[in-house]
C-alpha cells in the first residue's frame, strides 16, 4: 500500500442534515491514520481544498431532490470507482421523502416565506434510484463502526461485514430482555436493519427504525404486533414514516397495512 499511490477518497453531500458525513469527522482516533492511508480529495466539511476526480471511493450522503442534484450524481458516479451511499437520506430518501406521499407545492408554501424562489422535484429519492451504487450503508445517522468497516474493508480489498439481519439479533446478543415481550413496548426491531447495536431497547425503549428495513421484512406480520402493543393505526404510520419513510412504505403493500400508499412517480420499482 505504501509504495503505491494512496486511494483517493471523496465525500459528497446532497439533501441531508450532514450528520452522516460528520460521522467521518467523528472517528477521532481513526481520522489521523485514515489521512495516512487515503488521499482525501474531496470533503467540503473538512476542507475547502478540493481536487478533481477520478476518485477511488466516493461516500455520498443525502437524497436527490432537485434536477441539478440528479445531474450531479451522474457526474459523481462517472468519476468514482466505488460509490457508497451513506445514511437514510441517501439510501431511502430520508425524512424529506414524506413529500413523496403529499403535495410538495403545499409543503413548499407552508415552509418557505418566498416559495417562488424554491425549485424542487416532487420526490426525494435515494441515490440508487438514479445511479448504480456499490453499497448502501443504512442508518440515521450511520454507525461510526460500520463506516470504518466499509473503509477498512475497501482498503483491504475485502467485502465489508454489514449484516442485513434485524436489530433483534443485536438486541439478544447484547443480552437485553426484549422490551416488547417483557414490557409490551412497541418496537420496530424485528423489521429494522441491524447496525446501531440495539441501543434503544438497552435503554428500555422500542426501536424507532432509524436504520431502515432489514434484508428480510415481513411487514404484514409486524403491523398487528404493533397494534397489539397499543398503537393506533395513526401511531403505526407515524412510527414507520420517519427517516426511512419511503423504504418502509414500499413494504406496506398488504391488507394488513394501516394505509396503502400510492407509489409515487419516479420511485424505483
Amino acid at each position, binding site marked *: *500500500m505504501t509504495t503505491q499511490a494512496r486511494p483517493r477518497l471523496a465525500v459528497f453531500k446532497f439533501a441531508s442534515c450532514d450528520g452522516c458525513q460528520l460521522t467521518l469527522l467523528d472517528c477521532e482516533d*481513526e481520522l489521523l*491514520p*485514515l489521512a*495516512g*492511508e487515503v488521499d482525501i480529495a474531496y470533503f467540503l466539511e473538512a476542507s475547502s481544498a478540493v481536487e478533481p476526480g477520478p476518485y477511488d471511493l466516493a461516500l455520498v450522503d443525502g437524497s436527490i431532490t432537485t434536477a441539478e442534484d440528479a445531474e450531479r450524481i451522474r457526474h459523481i458516479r462517472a468519476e468514482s470507482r466505488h460509490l457508497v451511499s451513506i445514511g437514510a437520506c441517501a439510501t431511502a430518501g430520508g425524512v424529506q421523502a414524506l413529500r413523496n406521499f403529499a403535495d410538495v407545492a403545499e409543503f413548499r408554501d407552508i415552509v418557505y416565506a418566498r416559495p417562488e424562489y424554491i425549485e424542487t422535484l416532487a420526490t426525494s429519492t435515494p441515490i440508487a434510484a438514479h445511479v448504480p451504487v456499490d453499497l448502501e450503508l443504512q442508518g440515521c445517522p450511520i454507525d461510526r463502526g460500520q463506516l*470504518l*468497516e466499509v*473503509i*477498512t*474493508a475497501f*482498503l*483491504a480489498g*475485502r467485502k465489508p*461485514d454489514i*449484516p*442485513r*439481519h*434485524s436489530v*433483534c*439479533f443485536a438486541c*439478544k*446478543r*447484547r*443480552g*437485553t*430482555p*426484549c422490551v*416488547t*415481550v*417483557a*414490557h409490551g413496548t412497541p*418496537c420496530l*426491531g*424485528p*423489521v429494522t436493519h441491524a447496525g446501531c447495536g440495539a441501543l434503544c431497547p438497552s435503554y*428500555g425503549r422500542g426501536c424507532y427504525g432509524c436504520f431502515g428495513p432489514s*434484508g*428480510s421484512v*415481513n411487514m*404484514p*406480520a*409486524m403491523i*398487528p*404486533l404493533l397494534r397489539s402493543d397499543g398503537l393506533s393505526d395513526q401511531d403505526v404510520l407515524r412510527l414507520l414514516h420517519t427517516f426511512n419513510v419511503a423504504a418502509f412504505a414500499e413494504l406496506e403493500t398488504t391488507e394488513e397495512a394501516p394505509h396503502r400508499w400510492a407509489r409515487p412517480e419516479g420511485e424505483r420499482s
Partner: protein
Amino acid sequence: MPSATTTRDPAPPACVLDRQGLDALVQALRARGRTVIGPTHRGGAIVLEELRSAAELPYGWGVELDGGHYRVVRREDEAAFAHSAGPQSWKNYLLPERVRQWTADRAPDGELTVRQERHPPASYAFLGVRPCDLRAIAIQDRVLLGGWHRDDAYQARRNGAFLIAVECTEPGATCFCVSMGTGPAAGPGYDIALTEVLDETGHRFLARAGTAEGAEVLAGLPQRDADAATRTAAAEAVESAAGRMGRSMPPVDLHTLMASSLEAERWDEVASRCLTCGNCTMACPTCFCTTTEDITDLTGDHAERWSRWESCYDLDFSHLPGGPVRQSGRSRYRQWLTHKLGTWWDQFGSSGCVGCGRCIVWCPVAIDITEEAHALHQEQLARRAAGEGTP
C-alpha cells in the same frame, strides 16, 4: 459425553441447606475463586448475572409466561427458584456471543505473525441450572466437543464450570420438558443438585452432590441430614411439577414427523406470521451457530478473526455463490424447526430441543414450537385419512 468436571462418585447422602446454607454455598464457591452466576431480578426480568451473595437471588419473584409474553410477578411465598425460561441461558457464558479467535500482525519488514487467542481460564459456578438447561449444556457439549472439530475455547470454559442444578417445582406456561424427557427432575451432569422446599416446616433446599468436587463443597457448608419429610416434600414438588406442564408435544416420533412433513402446507401459514427476526435462535439454549467476522485496521497491518452468534433466520446465513439458498421465510422457519426436532438426531444423536419454552416466550409474535408440531401432526393425519396410500 463424559462430565466435564470430575468423575461421579456413588451418590453421597442428601443433606438439607437453609437460606443461610445457600448463602454459605455462594461464599464457598467465591472463596474457591469461582465467579458465581445465577438468576436475579433486574429491569423487569429475571436475568443471569454475577451473584455476590445468595441474597441477590429473586426471592419471592415468579414469572408469568406465554407466547410472546413475559412478566415478573410477586409471589405469595419467598421461593428463590420459582421462575423459568429467562431471556438468557447459560450459553451466554459458555458460548459467548462474540469471541476473538486469532490476531495477525505484519511487521515493517513484511513478516507476518499470527497469534491464536489465549482465553483466560474461566472458573464459573452456575447456580440454578434448570434440568432442561442441564440437558441443553450436554447437547452443546456434543455439538462443540464431540465431533472432529473441537472448540477448545468452549472446552476450557466448560471444564471450568461448576453446575448447581435446581429441580423445577414451578413450571411455566410455556414449559414442556416432560415431552422432551429432560425434566422436571435433574438428569446427570450436575456437581450439586438442589430441590427447593417451602412449607410450614420452613424454607430449605434438599441437596445432593453429583461429583467429588460437589461433595467436597457441600461438606463444608452448615447443613443437616436430610429428613424423611424434606425428601418426601421435595419428591412431591417435582412430581407435581411434571403434571403442570403448560405445553406438550404431539405423542409421536418427532424425527419421523419432521422428515415426512417437508412439503406441508403449514409452513406457508407459519411463514406468514414469522418475522425472521432471529429471537428464537438467540434465546434457545442449544442453538450453536456462529459465523466468522474478519476485521482489518486502516493500515492493513493488523487483522483479527472473531466468531459471533449467527442464526438460520439470517438471510445471508445460507449465502453461497449466487445468493442465499434459503431466500423465503418459509424455508428458514422450516430449516429451524426440522433441525431442532428432526435432523439434529441424524447429526448429533439427540433432539435439539429440551422443552425450555424460551423460543415461545421470546418470539415477539408468539410462534409456538409445540403448536407448530401439533399442526404438522394434524396435517399429516388429515392427509393420511384423505388418501390412504398416497405419500
